[in-house]
Every structure is written in C-alpha cells, then in structure tokens.
C-alpha cells in the first residue's frame, strides 16, 4: 500500500506556477512592439505591485515584522526534518556487544531483557534500554528490535 502523494504534487506545482506567473505575466505582456489593453496592463501592474511587496517595507519595524513572519516558516521547515525525541535519547547507531563474563558495567541484580534465538543468547540491560528505548539487532540471522 502506498500513500497517495499526487494532491501534494498538485499543490506544490500550483504554488510554483502562481509565483512564476505573477512575475512572468507583466514581464512578457508589458513589452515594446506589443499591443496592450487597458485592463490587462492594470492586471499586470497589480501583479507587480504584489511581487514588490517586500521592497515597499521601508520602515525598519515593518521589515523586522516581515522577517519575524518568515522565521517560523523557515524554522518549521527545518524542525519538521528533525527528530527531537532522538535529541533527548540518542540512538545507538552501531550497537556493540561484549561477552557475558566481561560485562562488568552490569550489576548482578540489574534486570536484563533476554532473548535466545536458536541457541544465541543476548541480554539487553534495562537501564540502557530505558535510555535508548530502541536497539536494532540481528540474532541468529533474525532481525529483531529490542524496545523498552
């Protein structure tokens, strides 16, 4: 099952088309050696007026305000691509393991989550799982995820 993405594409293409159109229409229409009607010139100039909105902000505070409006837009686009849950709990990119006898960092009375798949035994200490929450692993060729 794939999610339908075409509505998003239509929205994106429309947005770009409108942006380009606002500049393209007055530029291509208001040209030497071309006839122009009164209405179309008015429309073209109005579009330019919209396009030049930014340059009409002459006072420092109107410019600052416009910038402040843009910051959340840019910030939002950036944050959507971040995983703030992984800021809190760093994932283990390359989980490493030691032999049972050498695991001195685990206390005898600590609790471990243990699996044994076809004779291969692995222990995931709860205090570590409680932080990372997720450990992707392969045991006896079986891809598993230990979660807590």
């Amino acid at each position, binding site marked *: *099952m*794939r*999610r339908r993405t075409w509505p998003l594409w239509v929205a994106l293409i429309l947005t770009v088309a409108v942006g380009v159109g606002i500049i393209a229409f007055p530029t291509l229409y208001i040209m030497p050696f071309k006839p122009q009607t009164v209405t179309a010139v008015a429309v073209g100039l109005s579009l330019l007026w919209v396009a030049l909105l930014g340059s009409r902000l002459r006072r420092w505070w109107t410019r600052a305000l416009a910038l402040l409006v843009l910051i959340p837009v840019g910030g939002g686009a950036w944050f959507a691509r971040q*995983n703030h*849950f*992984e800021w809190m*709990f*760093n*994932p*283990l990119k390359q*989980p*490493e*393991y*030691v*032999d*049972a*006898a050498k*695991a001195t*960092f*685990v*206390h*005898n*009375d*600590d*609790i*471990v*989550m*243990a*699996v*044994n*798949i076809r004779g*291969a*035994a*692995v*222990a*995931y*200490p*709860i*205090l*570590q*799982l*409680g*932080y*990372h*929450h*997720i*450990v*992707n692993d392969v045991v006896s060729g*079986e*891809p*598993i*995820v*230990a*979660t*807590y």
Partner: protein
Amino acid sequence: MLDGRRLTFRLAGINNQNFVMRDEQTGTWWQQVSGLAIQGPLKGKRLTLIPHDELMFATWKTEEPRGRVLKTDPKIVKEEDYEPADWEDKVGKFPVKVAKAPGGPLEPRTLVVGIAIKGKSKAWPHASVLSSGATIDQVGDVPIALVVSPDGRSLRVFDRRMKDQTLTFVRAGTDLKESTLLDLETMTEWDFQGRAVQGELAGSQLTPVDYLLDYWFDWKTYHPDTEVLKPWTPVVKKKAKSEIPAPKGPGEKKDEGRVTKDEGKNKKDEGKKDH
C-alpha cells in the same frame, strides 16, 4: 522483520505514555507496546513478538554463560545520561496522563504481569506475584503457573499442562532461595527454566508462556477486556494464628471472587514494555 522486508526502527514520538517508533524503510509509525502500525504505508500490520525474558543479570549469566550483552555507549556514560539504578522506582512515581483512566481495582501505575492467550487476557499485580513464589491460575482455558526465580525478582510463566495432566505447582520451603518448585500431582522437582530435574517427570520441559511486565493503565489500554486480580499477600507462618490474613497464598488456586472482569470492546495482542 515483516513480510520479508527488513525494517530498522527509530524513536519517533509518544502516545498515552507509550512510545511510538518509526521505521526508516517505509516511514510507518508503530506503537511500541502492541507492535501495531498505527499510521503510514504499513498501517494495520503487526510485528511478531519474540519470546523474551526479564531476568536478573546474575540469573541470566548463569543460564547463558556464552551470551552477549549490549555494551554501553561511552558518550552517554560520559554525559551520565544512562538511567540510574533506582530508575524503575522513579518511573513508578511519574504521574499518569492518559486519555482514559484504566479503572479497576489497581492504581494506574501498579506494575502488573500481563498475559494474553488466544484473545483472553489477565493481569496480576507484580509485587503480589513476586511475594508468592509460585502462582497458579489460568487465562481462558489455558492453565498457567507464574514462577519466581530463587533470586526473588526474575519471573517465568509456564503452561501447566504436561502429558494428559494439569500440574499444581508449589514452592516448598520457607526461604525462597532454598525453596524447591514441586508439583503436587507427581511431586516432581522443577527448576526455574521449567525443566523437571528430579522425580517421576524428570527430563520433561514445561512450555513457556509470554508475559508482559507493564503498568496497569497501559495493559488495560491495549487489553480492554482483561481480567485483573487484586493485590494479595501470601500466607506467612506467624506465631499468632489469628493474624493470618484471609487471602490465599502460594500454590493455591485464586478464587473467582477476587477476579474482576472489566468491560471493553476489542482485544489486542501483547508487545513489550511501556514506561
């Protein structure tokens, strides 16, 4: 692994105090405790639960001397970000903020042992189970035994059916460390791994049953139809006879009067643990 596709999971959110993970391959969001895909291309699929144990490290090391242990990440150790030894106690005091209160005879954050078999589910207060040494009960029509290890903390659950008979287990002895697990039918002695070590059934192996250590509120969310037992205290031999409390102790069948059947609509399967 799902339908031949290998997925890699990352932490991606929280839903009613149980975390949500996301796979890198399809971007689907999965509920940790149920293993169910809740949003995305694989919505509705469920991950297969791998049989697992929650054991005391010393007990595990004795059983699996050649096993491997997840290593700590030096960076996290340096930043002292790993959970402290008393972490579970602290989490046990966290407030419970969920969309729907669990109700039932237990406080929402009571740790329970939850078992779901063939659409039937039941939960026992973890502390009561540990204090009992061996608890016999049944989930639906499957007779089970919740067996505490001599270490006093590790727990395993077994199907009590063995060759045509249903066994009644007791922990014999006053001290858990030196107690032996016996069945009353054959007086065979069993170990914590479910192996018959001495007696008529010697050499037999009990079938383990998956269980989930979970908070009551979370177990109830994913098993709305669950039955639940009120906390009980085991019979302890005391000098004054009159002080012996009414609830029944280890190895005795729980009477139905203490089983609360809660109302609910749908049933779901088990997963791993919540926090």
